[in-house]
């Protein structure tokens, strides 16, 4: 753990999941800022509007796939169009209920998607992620 995880973004339309995931993250990373967005569009807007503001820019984005409006895939397509410098500031991990191997392999086609995790996100998984990427 080379550095403290400063900011995490949860992109999920399920409020219960967001509640539980936020709680799990806090169990091991109590200082981390957690930004919760309930749609892809909302998350994208935030990332663009915050692009020139120094703080807080998420270093880790958990992205759900099945969402009303802009879903996870559409978000990835838009995110890909963003400034490369902005892209490089965060790593994206898919967080989905889907156990479908198709979805998993589809994620791997995006180079900036680092991992694919099945819900629920637990403190154990969180520790693994922080240990692996930060």
């Amino acid at each position, binding site marked *: 753990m080379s550095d403290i995880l400063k900011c995490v973004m949860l992109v999920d339309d399920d409020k*219960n999941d967001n509640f*539980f995931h936020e709680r799990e993250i806090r169990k091991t990373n109590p200082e981390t800022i957690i930004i919760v967005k309930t749609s892809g569009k909302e998350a994208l807007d935030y990332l663009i509007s915050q692009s020139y503001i120094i703080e807080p820019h998420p270093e880790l984005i958990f992205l759900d796939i099945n969402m009303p409006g802009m879903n996870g895939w559409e978000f990835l397509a838009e995110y890909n169009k963003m400034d490369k410098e902005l892209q490089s500031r965060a790593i994206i991990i898919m967080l989905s*209920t889907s*156990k479908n*191997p*198709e979805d998993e392999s589809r994620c791997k086609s995006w180079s900036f998607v680092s991992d694919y995790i099945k819900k629920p996100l637990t403190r154990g998984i969180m520790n693994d992620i922080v240990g692996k990427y930060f």
Partner: protein
Amino acid sequence: MDKAKKSEELIEANKEIAIQNEEIEKRAAELTIAHKELVFQNREKEKRADELSMVSKELDFQNNEKEKRADELVIANNELAYQNEEKEKRAAELVIANKELVFQNREKEKRADELSMANKELDFQNKEKGKRAEELIVANKKLISLNEEKENRALELHNANKELVFQNREREKRADELSMANKELDFQNKEKEKRADELVIANKELIFQNEEKEKRASELVVANKELAFQVGVNEVLKQFTYVVSHNLQEPLRTVSNYMQVFEEDYSKILDDNALGYLRLVDETTKRMGRLLCSLTDISRLGRNIKLTTVDCKKIINDVIADLAALIENSKAVIEVTDMPTLNVYEVEMRQLFQNLITNAIKFRKKGTHPEIKISSENINDKWKFSVSDNGIGIDNIHFERIFDIFQRLHTDAEYEGNGIGLSNCKKIVQLHHGEIWIESMLDKGSTFNFTIPNLTT
């Protein structure tokens, strides 16, 4: 002949004469006696005797002569006898020759008669021919005149003939060519007739097959429509199952998450009863989660998956590694024989082995350790896999239904389960175009067999 008789007669006469001579001498002696008595007479008689003596001498001479003559006659006689025999022989030969001559004579007479007849016939014919000759002479004259005409005609014909001969040769050549061509055509014709006959037969067969195929095709069309409908229904059902099971997972997970929050944040202020109930809710939720997982798995079978070449030994070893805790807790012993490398749907194949091994451990007899043997066997163009255990076994009346979904033989209290595992196994084997079946007896363990054919990727 006469001479012979004559000589015989002479001989007889001679003998007679000799006898007579002796008689005469006796008479002479008597006469001498009588002479003495008859002196007178004697003298007379002496004169007579002298005369007689003279006669006697003459007679004696004559006698000698006659003896000589007789000897000569004997010789002559012998000669005559020989000649006679010769003549007799000759006569006999002559008799034979005579007969032959008589016969020849008769033949010649016959022949003469025939010749006479023939002669008459020839004579008649001769006369006829004479008549005919006269007629012919007349006809000949006419013919000579006609002949001259014909010679003229012949000359014309000869010329025409030459032309015809030439034309004939040309035509013969042509005819030969045509004959050759004809033979060729005839041969081809026969071949074509044969071929035509064969084709007629083949055609009939084809027509028959065609009809059969049309029937079959129409049957298949019907069956296909039915299948397409069923496949459609199946696909919709699969989709529905997938969506339902997947969507139900989310609220269930939320319940489960909040159970965790309760346990972590409120266990201190809840009594034992409340905690017991929460634990029950938690267990039930987890069971429902597993049920939905299985449903999701089953509904996803065969969707957009690819065949990959995989070492089945590796799949089994991976499954054994995944089930390490279960195997350790149950003290199960698993023996795996040689395994082939096959083209399979890897994820599904893994699930298949996992379900069968899990079942083999789960349905163990109380107080025993599971002994599991996993083996493979190459049969023709497919592989047969067997997973055997020493577990509780299954009555053969259940052999079919255990592969149906949601069919369970035991309560949760006995053996926990959701009735999906084996139906999933069956689906996976069918996905590989194989078969699955069980061999088992109650209390004697079970062997699950399934086949996987050689599939091409």
